[in-house]
């Protein structure tokens, strides 16, 4: 990020990789370039690239005519936006009370053990990133784990291994 800003200060913006430019162009085409579009634009880019690399933030800042610090501040604030690369599959464990009281803790322990990851970590082979999330509104079928966009409910600890095996 800092490198990107330094480049701009020198008048030499780093050339954004083509996939980054394409993602930002598509997002701006859909949501516009007004100030209020910042979050939808970042969300769209994040979805397409998997995270928000410094080049993408710089490009968004340029297109929306907004200070890079503001773009960066917003990107850091929201949990659906990530400034770090993530694994191929994002494993989100719901850690809120409704899932907790119906056996969430034991599922969490099984999940951590099966993945060998602490929350926020990505596996060495780049396959999984494990994070905790707040309630995703599937509590009627808790405990709940979301992998990529798929919600898995009514989980028990002994189902965890088989579930993960479905994501290569």
């Amino acid at each position, binding site marked *: 990020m800092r490198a990107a800003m330094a480049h701009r200060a020198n008048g030499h913006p780093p050339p954004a990789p083509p996939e980054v430019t394409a993602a930002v162009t598509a997002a701006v085409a859909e949501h516009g370039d007004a100030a209020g579009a910042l979050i939808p634009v970042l969300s769209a880019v994040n979805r397409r690239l998997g995270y928000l690399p410094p080049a993408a933030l710089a490009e968004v800042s340029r297109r929306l005519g907004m200070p890079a610090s503001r773009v960066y501040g917003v990107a850091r604030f929201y949990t659906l*936006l990530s400034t770090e690369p993530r694994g191929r599959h994002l494993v989100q464990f719901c850690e*809120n009370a409704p899932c907790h009281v119906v056996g969430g803790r034991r599922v969490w322990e099984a999940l951590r053990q099966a993945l060998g990851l602490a929350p926020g970590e990505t596996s060495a082979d780049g396959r999984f990133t494990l994070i905790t999330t707040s309630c995703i509104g599937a509590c009627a079928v808790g405990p709940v784990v979301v992998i990529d966009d798929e919600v898995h409910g009514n989980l028990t600890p002994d189902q965890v291994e088989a579930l993960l095996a479905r994501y290569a």
Partner: protein
Amino acid sequence: MQTFRSLVLVSGDPRSLALGAQAVFEQLQSAVRQRGLEAEVALKLIGEAGPTAALPLVIIYPEAVVYGPVAPADAADIVQQHLAMGHPVERLQAPERDLGGRLAWLSARRGTLPAEQRILLARAGRIDPESIEDYILHDGYEALGRALTGQTPAEVLSQIEASGLRGRGGAGFPTGRKLRLVAQAEGEEKYIVCNADESEPGTFKDRLLMESDPHALVEAMAIAGYAVGAHTGFVYIRGEYRLAYARLEKAIQQARASRLLGPDLFGTRFGFDVHLHAGAGAYICGEETALLESLEGRRGEPRSRPPYPVTRGLWGQPTAVINVETLANIPPIVRHGAAWYRTFGTPSSPGTKLYTLMGNVNVTGLIEVPMGITLREVITIYARGMKGGGHLKLAQTGGSSGSVIPASLQDTPIDYASFARLGVALGSGALLICDQDTCAVDLVRVLLRFFRHESCGKCTPCRVGTEQAYQILARVAEGGGHPDDAASLERLAHSLEMLSNCGLGQTAAQPLRDLLRHFGAEFDAHVKLGVCPAGACALARRPAVAGILGVPISG
């Protein structure tokens, strides 16, 4: 799974007991047993049932028949005629003039089920949510047409005010008053903002409303816009709600194509349009001023108030921020009138309420019932009882910003006035029902973990207070409690409540207070005896104390 066909409550307050309630209860019990109805009829001696002179009372659900005063000798008739044959015993029914408040309301509904009352969910599951034709065939856009062509904005406003509708987003502010404030405020533009951020743990009612009946929200926003003189509406929808977003997007397109959104609606000079805006994951954005910040493309940090959004909201203009469920009440109110609306619920809280049921019960999911129902009714009738024959220990109402309430309050009507009197927060409509295996300390620890994580960090009392409270609870749950931990939590609750900038920190105090007030003995057991009476928290998993679990403890 244990399900009962009938629920029989006997009032067991001191006056009822003095008048023979215990004997009535026992006679009912033996008559039920004699007729072999134990598996179908749940019988409970409760505390005070409500204001009446006709004690002792016997109330039978789901018909909601109120008997009183009942003598032990009447028990056989009630069981024989009512429970076995299905005919209420008229001569024993409490005279209407002797009943007040909730009992009068129940009694007025005699003979009908206090069953699910579907006003908001009337179309859910019955229509194709992606078809505007289906919506129109089922009364859709009738209220908007009627308002625009037959009523002045002032008349629509008065109607909403007269209905007594209160905000369902958690705070319960009267919706009519909010709209009037916006209508009266000066501004070049005015906005209706629908709060569809729904991030309260355990709450998914707004999602289901939007997914099953998206046009209802569009119609409601247009009516609200007409009432206050706004021409633009925004739906701020939680980023994870992809299906609800897609359905709303489609609904808006269809409404525009059918000229139910856009300029000159129904041949009048009034125009209205709706825009969608997806959030990006931050609980605090449900707070209305943080939501407006986010809508303007900034970090979702709450603004200082005053000024309130009703005078200076989105882009500095007068704005009504209204919850999805609240809005969904508006078309039925306009269609049927305020008097009709007030026939549902209680005088202080008219209408129905959506609840999400979850936890250790047999049936989980979404229900719509009249305001004023009790927790016991919800558990017995709709949730079909506790799972595995367990018993209710506590319930957590309204997600994290609600209250942790003990089983002793399960006969309190769930409405704004009754809950406020008890210092309990109704919150958003989540009902997390927990059995004896839930540890109150552990539960409150998990709630505080949520607040700690979601605190936006802008104000220090909230950021530091939620962190410290969490650390104390985590330590207590691990067996490292100090004798002064209760006092520290009390102090933290006080400063969270008094010094936090917004509702997040203020509501974080509630579960701490509930823990100390209702589950003090259980907290002390952790701190002073080093045991978890429920055998559920981290402390219980330490081998050293595993042998002395099950120490009897009250609460």
